[in-house]
């Protein structure tokens, strides 16, 4: 009887533990990787109570701040990974584990298996707009270049899980190949990363993607920058620095976004997703004839690796990045994405000023979404140039 009483009291106390932890932080909370939408304080009104919004927000906020939550999440993920070789990830952005614990975003695998359709009639008006942008940028004595970023799934298909490798039909003509033809037809200047990576792989075993990362590593980014310089240099009336690759070193150190997918697994022991990493050692050529340019990047998270590689290298004078054509990250200055962003807040940049400032405009699109991306930027930028050039 006394034991039952004691145990019962312990049980009730255990139910209070998370709240006690939240208040007093008895055990140091552990960080979780990934971006989440944070919940605001729920407003209490009669109508928010009646329609259930208040309750939903209270619960969401309570759970997001629950003590031991990060420990529980990591424990669950570790159990799934260690016992079942299973990854727990956002069902809207699933991560798939391939051979030798290589990680892939599911969307890239899906595109590898079943590429999106390219309807020429539908896309040509947009690509014509992109071509006009290129023309107007050149008329403004600036350089323009599209960078087709490669997908890890198509670059290293042998590392995909067997079911994915077997699912792609032979002789698949994907959206990347179709879009390339359209770009060539319209004479749009582009860096063909998928081809560059395939060619590089024939001559070197150095990896261009990290095992646990979704983006190209710094070595892959460097190859692209070199190719990009070749494309933009002839368009400018001044010389820009070159990037010379001196050597490539190999270690297990993670830099930048090399293990972003691995970190997103939120494991206690996450070493299995870190493998050999290849780091380029390079120098930037400088002399009095060379002028470091001002660069404007537009793109998604692949652009972040390019930016991180070149910031502080002296290659450019300044760099602006329009992340998803909504958030501005600049070098020097605000070089990283803010920790907290209100998804409903409007874009925080002046496009006209950015276009005016830039010597080089780099437009990054991933091969899985080709040929259409950032078309709202294209439309707005063309309008800016039209107004100036009319």
């Amino acid at each position, binding site marked *: *009887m006394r*034991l*039952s*009483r004691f*145990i*019962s009291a*312990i*049980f*009730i106390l*255990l*139910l*209070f533990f*998370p*709240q006690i932890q939240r208040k007093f932080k008895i055990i140091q909370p552990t960080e*979780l*990787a*990934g*971006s*989440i*939408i944070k919940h605001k304080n729920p407003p209490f009104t009669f109508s928010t*109570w*009646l329609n*259930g919004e208040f*309750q939903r927000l*209270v*619960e969401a906020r*309570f*759970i997001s701040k*629950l003590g031991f*939550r990060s420990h*529980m*999440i990591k*424990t*669950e*993920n570790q*159990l*799934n990974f260690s*016992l*079942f*070789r*299973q990854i727990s990830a*956002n069902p*809207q*952005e699933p991560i798939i584990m391939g051979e030798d614990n290589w990680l892939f*975003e599911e969307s890239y695998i899906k595109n590898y298996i079943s590429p999106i359709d390219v309807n020429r009639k539908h896309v040509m008006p947009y690509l014509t707009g992109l071509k006009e942008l290129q023309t107007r940028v050149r008329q403004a004595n600036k350089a323009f270049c599209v960078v087709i970023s490669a997908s890890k799934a198509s670059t290293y298909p042998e590392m995909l*899980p067997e*079911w994915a490798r077997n*699912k792609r039909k032979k002789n698949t003509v994907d959206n990347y190949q179709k879009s390339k033809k359209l770009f060539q037809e319209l004479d749009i200047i582009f860096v063909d990363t998928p081809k560059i990576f395939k060619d590089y792989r024939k001559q070197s075993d150095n990896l261009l993607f990290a095992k646990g990362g*979704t983006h190209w590593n710094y070595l892959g980014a460097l190859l692209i920058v070199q190719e990009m310089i070749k494309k933009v240099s002839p368009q400018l009336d001044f010389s820009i620095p070159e990037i010379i690759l001196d050597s490539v070193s190999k270690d297990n150190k993670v830099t930048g976004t090399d293990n*972003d*997918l691995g970190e*997103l697994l*939120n494991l206690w022991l996450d070493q299995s997703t870190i493998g050999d990493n290849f780091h380029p050692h390079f120098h930037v050529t400088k002399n009095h004839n060379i002028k470091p340019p001002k660069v404007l990047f537009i793109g*998604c*998270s692949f652009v972040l690796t390019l930016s991180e590689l070149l910031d502080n290298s002296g290659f450019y004078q300044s760099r602006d990045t329009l992340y*998803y054509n*909504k958030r501005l990250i600049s070098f020097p200055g605000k070089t990283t*994405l803010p920790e907290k*962003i209100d*998804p409903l807040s409007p874009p925080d940049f002046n496009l006209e000023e950015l276009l005016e400032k830039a010597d080089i405009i780099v437009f990054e699109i991933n091969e899985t979404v080709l040929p259409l991306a950032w078309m709202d930027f294209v439309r707005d930028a063309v309008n800016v140039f039209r107004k100036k050039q009319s």
Partner: protein
Amino acid sequence: MIFSSLFFLYAFLPFFLIFYYITPEKHRNKTALAGSLLFYSWGAPKFVLVLIISSISDYYLSQIICKTSEYSHKKRKSALIFALVINLSVFLYFKYANFFVGEFNSLLSLFKLDSIIWKEIALPIGISFFTFQKISFLIDVYRGNALKASSVFDYILYVALFPQLIAGPIVRYHDVDKQLKQRNHNTELFFSGVWRFCQGLGKKVLLANTLALTADKVFALDYSTIPSTAAWLGLLCYAFQIYFDFSGYSDMAIGLGRMMGFKFLENFNRPYISNSFTEFWRRWHISLSNWMREYLYIPLGGNRTSKARSYLNLWLVFLLSGFWHGASWNFVFWGGYHGFFLSLDKLLKAKTNSSNRSVYKQLLTFFLVIIGWVFFRAVDLNSSFSFLKSLFSFSSRESLQFNFSEIISNRGYFCLLISPLFAMIPLSASKEQFFAEMRGSTITYLNKITIFIISVLILFLSSCALANSGYNPFIYFRF
């Protein structure tokens, strides 16, 4: 708010238990009532008034129904009928109005007539359960099987008691009337409630939720192309999912009831080991079949009529039972399917004595029961038949080409493999008997401590699973 949520476990429950036990015993019903109404209004704020007002109306009508000396039998019966009509009208309106209007509109469109404009009504949570409980109260009071409610508050407590309000078990009034007035709060019962609650939580979160992932994926596929192996896999997962989900919830309800001093009757007793459909319904959702037998089958005549009539009564009861489960023809079909096999049991005079068990009968019953689940799970009747067709298509080529890893994970396989252990293997004693042994003085401290450690482990693992399911980070935000 559901029992298997972090908010319930770590916000509502601990505070409720503290308030409950610091309240003096004679006022604990009021605390339980306040907690229950808060619980219900948290999830269904618009409908709590429906629950309260209809309960008040039941109570005051029951004051007429129970007074055998003051009112004539005719007046008492009229009051009973009136009360039943109110309850059934509310129930039929909220649960079936959308369905009947939809069917009527389909009929109108057949004759190329304009449809009725109708704004769909939301379904109050738990209405199927608490309506049956209210009917149970009214009839028990009429029959004199139970004590009348001592106050309107106690009656509302019976209806709204949060452990069984949302998903049962359906507690007949005469099973708890005495406990509402007086019940024993002791730590042995509380401890047994903790253990029972944690078992239910584990069944729901660790097993049912995992199996649901596969079942949902399979039932979302195109039935015309799905290979039969995948269809069977999905159906098996669903069969165990629904068992662990429902029985797990019942365990949690029974456990919570015990923590408050209530002893509810069992609702599940390893139904998948049944040798016949008759036995299945003595082991599956026992509270529903008890209710159906007592308040529907027996009043219709039960076994006391001709054989043909008793088969018809049985079939009718199960048709209605199917309809009670959901406002859709596939549920009706499911009910009729079970009614058919129950009638067949009677016709063949199947032995339901558990001592004459046979693996073949068990497997056959299990097979037929899970075929029935197709109608329970599929969206409508057409989909049900399409799925059935896919179950028996048996194309080896399609099976070899199908990627099973897309529908089931390693954890899913594991849960499916261990499911029979928890669902079907007969124990040497029932749970109740096992725990009854625990309450005796012969049980050592070690057993209680072992059970407590297992309970805490289940609570911890379930909390980890719940925390993780609610954390869906993006690799990078895209806005």
